[in-house]
C-alpha cells in the first residue's frame, strides 16, 4: 500500500491553485471539473512529478470551518512539506508576503516552521532528518 494522494480543504480553489503553484512552487497535475463549480485539483512537487499528489479540496462541508478554526487558533498545521533548508525557504516565502505563525525552530536534528496557506490552513515545512 502506498500513500499517493492526500488533501487539504481550501476556501477558494482558484486562489489555492495560485498559492500552491506560484508561491510554493508545486505544479498542477489534474484539473477536472466536478459539478457546477468544484474541480478535482491536484498538485505535485516538481522534484517528484509522479510522487504523492496533494488534492486542493473545496471546503464546502459545514464541519470544515469549525474544525480548521480550532486547529489554526492553536497553531496546528494540517500538512507537512519537506524542504532542504527551512531557513532559506522561510526567507523566500516571507519575501513573497507569506505569514508565518512559527519562525524556524531548531529541535535536535529537525528544523520546522509553520505558515498560513491563505486558504484556511497552516502548513509546516521541515527538514528531512538525515
Amino acid at each position: 500500500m502506498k500513500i499517493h494522494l492526500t488533501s487539504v480543504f481550501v476556501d477558494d480553489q482558484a486562489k489555492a491553485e495560485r498559492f500552491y503553484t506560484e508561491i510554493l512552487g508545486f505544479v498542477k497535475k489534474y484539473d477536472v471539473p466536478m459539478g457546477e463549480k468544484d474541480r478535482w485539483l491536484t498538485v505535485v512537487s516538481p522534484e517528484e512529478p509522479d510522487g504523492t499528489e496533494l488534492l486542493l479540496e473545496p471546503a464546502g462541508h459545514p464541519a470544515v470551518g469549525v474544525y480548521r478554526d480550532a486547529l489554526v487558533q492553536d497553531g496546528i498545521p494540517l500538512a507537512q512539506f519537506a524542504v532542504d533548508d527551512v531557513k532559506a525557504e522561510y526567507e523566500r516565502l516571507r519575501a513573497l508576503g507569506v505569514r508565518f505563525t512559527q519562525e524556524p525552530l531548531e529541535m535536535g536534528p529537525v528544523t520546522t516552521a509553520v505558515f498560513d496557506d491563505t486558504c484556511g490552513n497552516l502548513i509546516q515545512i521541515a527538514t528531512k532528518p538525515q
Partner: protein
Amino acid sequence: MADDLFKALADPTRRTILDELAEKSGQTLFEICARLSMKHRLDISRQGVSQHLAVLEAAGLVETRREGRYKFHDLNAAPLRQITERWPTPDTPGPEEPTP
C-alpha cells in the same frame, strides 16, 4: 494573587514553559508543545500543556493575544516583582546559576 504566582512557579514544566517564552515571545500552543517534547523530551499531552498555560495565565505570567485567526502566548515577568518587593534582594545580582 500571590498564591497563584507561587503555585504557578512550583512546577518544573511550567518553569520550562516560561524559559521557552523568555527565549521567544509570541508562540502558538503548537510551538510550545513542540519545544517541550522535542527540546526538553517532556512527555506531556496538548491538554496538559493547555492546563499549565491556564495556571500561568491566572498568575499573570503568561498573556495571550488573538491576531486574526491565531492565538499567541507571551511572557509577562512583571508579577515576579512581588517576590523581590516582599523579600528585597541585594542590588547587584550574583552569578547566575541555572536551576532545575
